[in-house]
């Protein structure tokens, strides 16, 4: 029970402390200690989950099984590396006068509230509480995105607040509909939205209501994931957010949003044939993947480039979950972890480049290899990982997704959405066609990313850009993440493999 309490109370406590502490050094120390404590608590929780299967505590408010535990690992790992990176990043922003020293406390307060909301969303037993927590992430992050208070960042923050609030209001209607169907089976109980209750009776819920509910939930939480066409807030927000926040948004928040979708999918799949949710996810996944790959070719801003790459990778994970089955789901989940690592690395690198070169334009940056050798290596690793080259771990998960896709036989050609909208997948566009499209756009992506990021690494740096890079504490997460990307690409450690395999069985019950 205590790991759960540490995970929930830690960020709240640290957030409140941040409001009263004035000295930057102490703020960073509190932040880092909290993240370390969360990491330890998460490790203990993982042991418990591996031993007992699941943990239900705090009056059934908290429920952690292999799936939520896996997501918590991503939250704590990326959060810990962020806290180290922020140490050097935020101090430099204060030293340059970009933000006033007194605002640092507010920054950490919001950061910890953001963290708390994500942990709560992941561990909530009730789908309603989960919704409250996801909306909480929107409220906590909107000012983090607009933290530098430039006109563009205010614009991005407002757009994010409005679009995500609308999306999430639709998701709430989906949750209400789920309750509408479950309260009939479970009686008028306050626990009728609890995952632990729902999973037992899901096959007796009304399929029509669940269909409608899942559509609302998919569009709602899909906005937070950044699925096309609900993605328009995402590139602006990621570009304007401070680099460590962009890393958290891309690496962790998207993952949590996908998790909320998976929870609903696990319930809906019991009442309906899994093709219903599967085909919808497949459709959104493919559209996101294709559109984002094309947009990557148009970008001239490297943070925007990484933002579109996030949309593309979430599309890829959705394809994995949409194909479903053991292999596809395993690939999708593993890809969430790999994407979080690679994307956080990418945004850390972007923060380093931006601070040195004072521009977000790809054309404005040349000769990273001479000016910032460590960052240059990290840029290349992030780029290789994001386009899916071996030996980096995204290659493995993408391979799993593609092989699941190619092995898939489509049982039905038409997805009925509600009573009157029907999405028809024609006979010709079968798995082979889908794989071909997938690989084609994979190549497009490869070319676009490598050409753009490569041009930043080589050549001679501009006049007036300092050469050489001194080691700071902010370089530690870069090294760790590069090592992790290679390590996970070569071998998957036994506890993680077991955890992933169990998480798959949470989603694929039949």
């Amino acid at each position: 029970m205590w790991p759960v309490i540490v995970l929930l109370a830690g960020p709240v406590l640290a957030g409140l402390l941040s409001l009263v502490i004035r000295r930057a050094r102490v703020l960073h120390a509190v932040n880092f200690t909290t993240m370390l404590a969360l990491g330890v608590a998460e490790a203990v929780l993982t042991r418990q989950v591996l031993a007992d299967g699941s943990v239900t505590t705090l009056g059934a408010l908290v429920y952690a099984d292999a799936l939520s535990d896996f997501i918590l690992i991503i939250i704590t790992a990326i959060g810990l590396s962020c806290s180290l990176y922020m140490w050097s990043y935020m101090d430099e922003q204060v030293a340059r006068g970009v933000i006033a020293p007194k605002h640092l406390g507010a920054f950490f307060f919001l950061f910890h509230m953001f963290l708390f909301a994500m942990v709560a969303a992941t561990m909530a037993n009730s789908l309603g509480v989960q919704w409250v927590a996801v909306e909480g992430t929107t409220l906590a992050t909107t000012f983090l995105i607009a933290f530098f208070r430039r006109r563009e960042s205010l614009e991005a923050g407002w757009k994010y607040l409005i679009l995500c609030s609308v999306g999430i209001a639709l998701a709430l209607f989906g949750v209400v509909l789920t309750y509408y169907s479950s309260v009939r089976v479970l009686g008028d109980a306050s626990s009728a939205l609890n995952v632990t209750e729902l999973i037992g009776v899901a096959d007796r819920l009304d399929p029509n209501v669940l269909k409608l509910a899942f559509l609302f939930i998919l569009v709602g939480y899909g906005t937070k994931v950044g699925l096309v066409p609900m993605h328009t807030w995402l590139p602006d927000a990621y570009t304007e957010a401070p680099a460590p926040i962009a890393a958290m948004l891309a690496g962790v928040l998207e993952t949590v949003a996908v998790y909320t979708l998976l929870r609903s999918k696990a319930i809906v799949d019991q009442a309906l044939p899994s093709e219903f949710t599967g085909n919808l996810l497949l459709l959104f996944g493919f559209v996101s993947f294709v559109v984002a790959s094309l947009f990557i070719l148009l970008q001239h801003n490297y943070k925007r480039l990484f933002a579109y790459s996030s949309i593309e990778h979430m599309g890829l994970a959705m394809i994995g979950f949409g194909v479903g089955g053991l292999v596809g789901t395993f690939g999708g989940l593993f890809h969430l972890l790999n994407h979080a690592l690679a994307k956080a690395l990418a945004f850390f690198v972007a923060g380093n480049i931006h601070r040195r070169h004072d521009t977000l334009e790809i054309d404005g940056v040349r000769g990273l290899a001479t000016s910032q050798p460590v960052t240059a290596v990290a840029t290349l690793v992030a780029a290789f990982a994001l386009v899916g080259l071996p030996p980096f771990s995204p290659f493995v998960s993408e391979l799993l997704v593609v092989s699941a896709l190619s092995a898939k036989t489509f049982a039905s050609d038409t997805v009925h959405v509600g009573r009157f909208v029907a999405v028809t997948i024609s006979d010709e566009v079968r798995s082979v066609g889908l794989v071909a499209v997938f690989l084609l756009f994979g190549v497009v992506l490869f070319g676009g990313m490598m050409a753009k990021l490569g041009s930043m690494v080589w050549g001679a740096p501009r006049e007036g850009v300092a050469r050489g890079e001194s080691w700071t504490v902010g370089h530690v997460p870069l090294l760790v993440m590069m090592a992790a990307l290679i390590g996970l690409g070569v071998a998957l450690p036994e506890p993680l493999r077991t955890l992933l395999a169990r998480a798959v069985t949470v989603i694929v019950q039949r």
Partner: protein
Amino acid sequence: MSEFTHLGSQLVNLCSVLLLLSSFAIVAQRRLSACVDLFALQSFFLATTAALVAFLTGHRHIYLAAALTVVIKVIVLPRILRKVIERLNVSRELVMNINIPAGLLICGGLVVVAFFITQPIIPLGYLLTRDSLAIALAIILIGFFTMIARKKAVTQMVGFLVMENGVFLGTTAAAYGMPLIVELGVFFDVLVAGLIAGIYTHRLQDAFDSVDTSELTALKE
């Protein structure tokens, strides 16, 4: 069906329709302060509906939700929004993305769509509040439409709150209220969202000399 339930169901329907009408009125209103007043009125109808359902069904926790609606959506949030409007240099919204007659027509269409979508699932509902589910979805869609059609940050916020009212009506109608902890959380989120939007309009006003979100064009492909 007894006479009593029949009358009750009629009353609930009447209140739901009043909610729907007030969202149409918001779509048709140019003056910002009137939009806020109409939202407060709509929230009052919502609280009445909830109290009515609580009285007719004996679910006491809905009274709490009704009381919270009065405090947060009838008193606090409209007050915040009025404060924001006072500080602004505009009181009327002259240019819209979609003009008012066309907007009203579209909203009429949205109501039809809402009834069409909910038709297969309505028979599952409680007798008392059956048709309210369709009306709730209609209000959500109209709120959504308001956010698209309007350009001012304040009216976009009102649109969001109208959506939230629709969801709340749906909760009351479909399931006689959600578990208490969820309802409290939702109220908290709505309140904080209102506060944040208030701060934003302030900062947008400082940075752009306008709360017209169509001025927000620095970020483009």
